[in-house]
């Protein structure tokens, strides 16, 4: 039982991170029907920006006096940095291709992904960027079950971000505009919604969430690396599709499911085949529900 609870907590932490990344995929997909392969790189860039900001604060000596302020500051800076990056990437690599076949935008996204991860490697060096570990030392220890403060922080922060996003999308004017653009660009333009601005905003929000996930990742695993976006990127893409791509609630559920399946598959069956379990669940769900868990019945969309 204790073993189960421990694995449950592990799964929750991992799943929360996947969910945050998956949201960016799903939001971008919802608005412009593009699988943004560079999204994993936004996540990595967020991790790097956070590491840089934290190291800078530590170097200035603010870390000892105001740790919470520094952490909040680096979250804000990293999210802003990634939003800034994503808006530019969209303008350069995706916007000119919006009228073309979706595959050409996909290819451009793949090129961007290679470009960004190598760009990070060249600017920050080939070695891992280290996160300070003094934050959130220790945790609750119940014999077999250990819950670190860090895990609690990550899970609660993830929950807060998810709730915030839900409010933004479903309760505010901007959210309404985003949903309108996702449904019909021409119609939303007729009611004076600037689709370009909304698309930029979507990219910015998605990248900001990915950046938050990147910092959490860095805090949790101790370091970030230029190639770290690739594997979580694919998993988060799977999570987004599992939930029904384009659906925000679906992405959250999908992220949690993929995280849980991975941890429980590894913990109870075999750790070497854990990715296989995650993909088998994905395939099984899609076999019985071809548009994902929450996906509505979309009309014929093909490559």
């Amino acid at each position: 039982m204790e073993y189960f609870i421990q694995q449950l907590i592990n799964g929750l932490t991992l799943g929360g991170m996947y969910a945050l990344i998956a949201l960016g995929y799903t939001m971008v997909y919802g608005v412009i029907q593009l699988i943004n392969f560079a999204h994993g790189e936004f996540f990595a860039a967020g991790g790097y920006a956070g590491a840089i900001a934290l190291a800078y604060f530590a170097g200035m000596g603010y870390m000892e006096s105001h740790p919470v302020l520094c952490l909040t500051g680096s979250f804000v800076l990293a999210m802003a940095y990634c939003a800034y990056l994503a808006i530019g990437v969209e303008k350069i690599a995706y916007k000119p291709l919006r009228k073309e076949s979706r595959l050409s935008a996909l290819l451009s996204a793949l090129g961007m992904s290679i470009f960004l991860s190598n760009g990070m490697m060249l600017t920050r060096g080939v070695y891992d960027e280290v996160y300070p570990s003094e934050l959130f030392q220790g945790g609750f220890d119940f014999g077999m079950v250990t819950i670190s403060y860090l895990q609690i922080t990550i899970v609660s922060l993830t929950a807060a971000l998810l709730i915030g996003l839900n409010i933004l999308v479903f309760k505010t004017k901007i959210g309404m505009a985003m949903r309108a653009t996702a449904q019909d660009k021409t119609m939303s333009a007729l009611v004076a919604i600037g689709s370009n601005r909304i698309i930029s905003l979507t990219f910015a929000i998605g990248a900001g969430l990915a950046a938050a996930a990147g910092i959490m990742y860095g805090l949790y695993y101790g370091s970030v690396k230029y190639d770290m976006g690739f594997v979580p990127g694919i998993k988060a893409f799977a999570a987004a599709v599992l939930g029904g791509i384009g659906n925000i609630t679906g992405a959250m559920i999908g992220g949690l499911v993929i995280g849980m399946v991975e941890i429980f598959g590894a913990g109870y069956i075999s750790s070497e085949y854990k990715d296989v379990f995650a993909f088998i669940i994905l395939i099984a769900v899609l076999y019985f529900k071809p548009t994902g868990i929450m996906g509505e019945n979309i009309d014929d969309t093909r490559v």
Partner: protein
Amino acid sequence: MRKRVASILAIGLILVPFLFGAVYAKTLRIGSMSPLTGPYASDGTDIKNGALTAIEVFEEMGGIPGYDKIELMPQDTACDPRQAVAAANKLINLEVAGVIGAYCSSSTIPASDVLDEEDIIMITPASTNEKVTERGLAYMFRMCGRDDDQAPAAAKFIKEQLGGKTLFIVDDKTTYSQGLADGVAKAAKEMGMTVLAHEHVNQGDKDFSAVLTMAKKANADIFYMSLQGFSPAAMMTLQAKRLGMKSQIVTQDAMFQPRFMDVAKDAAEGVYLTFGYTDPSTPEYKAFEKRYVPKYGKIAAYATYSYDATTALLKAIKAAGTTDSAKVKAELMKLDFQGVAKNVKFRENGDSGSTYIAFKVENGKFVPYWDPEKGLIK
């Protein structure tokens, strides 16, 4: 008409430097193969830097008679067998006198087949798999140790020094890590220890919480961690500590990289690892340190091996007075000198052997801790 002539002339002028670029002064070319992009770029860059340093030092000491310059031709393998073969063929085209590399055993093996067809000497500074030198290739050498040297040494250390009775082994399914983990499991069983579990994770994984929870439940005396590259290992160490795992962590030579402690920080304290014995007090090591550190930063495991491999190759070429592989090989076999990492002397099959000793992480440094012959090092 005049305009056309002018444009042709302009194109010609642009092309001229390319044509002349091909004409070099008489240079000796040495190839290096290592992953310069992709997840193992850090180790691959260390290999390249080590070789560059060796060439620099050798040139300062007078170089090789008959050549104005020694040049390194670094090639990227990305740890992908197909690209490794392409890189090997490229080096053959460049007419290199020898090749230092590659990093991943799975790149070294197919690349060495290609180089062997053209009788080009290859010295690997990092591939520890037995198969590398056991295929009877005439021109394949190895500067680092072998998995089947290291595994028994590690098992002996665990039993005799740490008094471990039960083991929990994790590897990440690469030729290197799995070969070593299997070797340790086998040796441990022969010595009467129990292997409680042998789990595998996948390359590219960063989250090890599931496996570590399992290890925590198993509560073995020793947690043997066999991963390719120091960065996942540092992450695993950190996560193990956070999870409150009590087993003693023992690991291997790939973690001999000071950045291991940068990432894992205080979680790394007290971790043991086996590594080929390097004496940091030799004048060779100190000279290398003085030259390498200001330029490339902290010294890593493969930089020293790559330095020694390059030096050995250059020495042999100088002694042979030619780049003819058979003669250089004869000279390589005769070599017996104190390198940076160890005393270099090749055996008949191309291996150079390595005495594995155990290091302990103390105050953020690797400290020699135990020797299989003499026991504790004070």
